[in-house]
C-alpha cells in the first residue's frame, strides 16, 4: 500500500465516522425522549394520555388530545394558505415571468426563509392579531392567526423547491406541448405539473414539517388554550408549544408528561414523513 492509498483509506474512515455520528445523535435523542416520556404514558394508560381531554398536570390529569388536534388543525391551515400561494408564485416565476424578474425575486424569497420565527410571531402579534380581533371577533389569538403566519413561513420552502423541480423538466416537454397547439396555461397544468410532481410534493412535505415543528411563532399568536377549538377564531395549543410553555416550571411527572408529548410528536412526524415518502416514490414510478 502506498502512502497515497493509505491516506485515502484514512479519509474514508474519518468520513464514515462523521456520517455515523450524525445518525448516532438521532439515536441518542430518540432514546432519551422515549426513556423520559414513556413511563408516564404507561402509568396513566396509553388511551387516557392520547385521548384524554383534560390537561391539568397539577391534578395529575394528562390528556393531550386537544393538542394533537391543535397541531393538526394549525398545520392543515398553514398548508391551505401556503400551498396555493406558493405554487402560484413558483409557476409565475418559472413559466410566465421573464428571466430577469426571476433572478431578482428568487433570492428575495429565499431570504424570507432566513427570517427568525420570533420575528414572524412578533409581526403576527402586532399586526395580524389586532386585525382579526377588530374585524372578525374573538380574542384574535387564534387558529386563523397561527395558520396565516405559518402559511407565510412555509411559502419560501414550497416556492424554491417547486421552482427547481419545474426548471428541471426537460425543455422538449414544453416545446412538444406547445407544438401540439396547447396554450401556455394548458402546458403548465397538463405537462409541467405532472412532470415536476415528485419535487412539488417534496416541497409540500418539507413545508408541512416546518409548520408542525414550529414553536416560537405559534406560542406568540395561537393563544395556547388547551381546548378543542369550535371555530377558527378560537385559541389553540399545539404539541410543540405545550412543551416549550411548561418545561420551565415543571417537575416530576409533569416534566415526564412533557417528554411524553415529545414522544407523540415524534411518532406523528415519523408517520407523516413515511407516508409522504411513499407517496412521492409512487408518483415518480408512474412517470
Amino acid at each position, binding site marked *: 500500500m502506498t502512502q497515497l492509498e493509505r491516506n485515502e483509506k484514512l479519509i474514508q474512515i474519518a468520513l464514515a465516522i462523521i456520517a455515523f455520528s450524525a445518525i448516532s445523535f438521532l439515536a441518542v435523542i430518540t432514546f432519551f425522549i422515549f426513556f423520559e416520556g414513556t413511563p408516564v404514558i404507561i402509568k396513566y394508560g396509553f388511551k387516557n394520555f392520547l385521548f384524554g381531554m*383534560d*390537561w*391539568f*398536570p*397539577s*391534578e395529575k390529569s394528562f390528556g393531550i388530545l*386537544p393538542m394533537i388536534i391543535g397541531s393538526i388543525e394549525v398545520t392543515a391551515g398553514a398548508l391551505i394558505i401556503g400551498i396555493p400561494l406558493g405554487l402560484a408564485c413558483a409557476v409565475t416565476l418559472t413559466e410566465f415571468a421573464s428571466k430577469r424578474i426571476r433572478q431578482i425575486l428568487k433570492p428575495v424569497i429565499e431570504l424570507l426563509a432566513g427570517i427568525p420565527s420570533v420575528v414572524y410571531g412578533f409581526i403576527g402579534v402586532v399586526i395580524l*392579531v*389586532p386585525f382579526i*380581533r377588530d374585524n372578525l*371577533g*374573538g*380574542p*384574535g*389569538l387564534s387558529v386563523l392567526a397561527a395558520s396565516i403566519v405559518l402559511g407565510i413561513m412555509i411559502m419560501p420552502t414550497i416556492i424554491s423547491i417547486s421552482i427547481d423541480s419545474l426548471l428541471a423538466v426537460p425543455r422538449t416537454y414544453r416545446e412538444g406541448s406547445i407544438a401540439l397547439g396547447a396554450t401556455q396555461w394548458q402546458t403548465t397544468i397538463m405537462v409541467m405539473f405532472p412532470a415536476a410532481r415528485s419535487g412539488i410534493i417534496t416541497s409540500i412535505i418539507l413545508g408541512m414539517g416546518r409548520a408542525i415543528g414550529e414553536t416560537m411563532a405559534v*406560542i406568540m399568536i395561537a*393563544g*395556547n*388554550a*388547551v*381546548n378543542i377549538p369550535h371555530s377558527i377564531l*378560537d*385559541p389553540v*395549543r399545539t404539541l410543540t408549544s405545550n412543551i416549550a*410553555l*411548561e418545561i*420551565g*416550571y*415543571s*417537575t416530576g411527572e*409533569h416534566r415526564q408528561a412533557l417528554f411524553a408529548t415529545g414522544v407523540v410528536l415524534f411518532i406523528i412526524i415519523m408517520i407523516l414523513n413515511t407516508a409522504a415518502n411513499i407517496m412521492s416514490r409512487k408518483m415518480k414510478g408512474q412517470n
Partner: protein
Amino acid sequence: MRRFIFVIIILAVFTTGCARGFSDKEIIIAGSTSVEPFADKWAEVYMEKYPNIVVNVQGGGSSAGIQAAKSGVADIGTCSRELKPEEKDLNEIIVAFDGLAVIVHSTNKTSNLTIEQIKQIFSGQIRNWKEFGGKDKIITVVTREEGSGTRGAFQELVMGKTRIFKGAIVQDSNGTVREIVANDPNAIGYISLGLVNDKVKAISLDGIMATDENIITKKYSLVRPFLFVTKNTPTGEVKDFIDFVLSQEGQGLIKEEGLIPVN
C-alpha cells in the same frame, strides 16, 4: 529572567485563586422566577457591602426551589406561594408580600368585581361582559401556564377546587399577560401587583382597591407571601444574609420595586 516572571505570574494566579477559595463564602439561592428579580437586587446590594461573600441567584420555579432546598443543592430556596402540607418540614421565612392584581383593559367600564364573580369568569360560567353591565362582548380570559407560582397562588386564593376553564388563553409570563390585556378591550387577567402599569386597569375586589395600605391591613384578599425556605434553621453566612433581607435596608429595597415589606 523570563522564567522568573512566569513563576511569579503562576504563583500570583494560584494564590489569588486560593484566597478566593478560602475566604469567599458562596450562598446559593434558587427557586421562584417571581422572587428572582428581588433576590437579585438583595444579592447585588449585599455583595457590595460584603465583598468577600458571593450570592448566587438562580431561577427554576417555586417547586424546583423547594426541591433544591430540601436536597441541599441550594442554601436558600425561594417560593412564591404558600407551602403545601407535605413541604411543611422545611424552615420557612416570609421575606415579602406580593399582591395579585386582577386587570382589565383601560377602557373597560367595570371597576369592581366580587371574588365570586372573578371565580365565575375564570371558571367559564360567565362568558359575557353584559352580565356586569358592560358591553355585549365575550370575555377574553387570560391565565398563566400550569406550574407557574402566580397561577398556583391565584388558584388557591380565588378558584379553590374549581378549575380554570379550558378556553382561557395561556401565556407564560406576567409581561405577556399584561400585554394582551392592554391590547384587547374584552380581556381580563391577573399579574403581580408590582407590575401593573397605566396601560391596564387593576379592578377592586369586593370594593377594596389593591393598594399597599389595604394589603398591609389584610383588607385586600389576593396576597401571596414570598418565602425563603431552608432545610434547617439558618446559621452563619446564610443567617446573616437573611437578617439583611429582613432589615430596614433590605425591606426598603423591595418596597422601591413595588413589593410589600413584611413589617
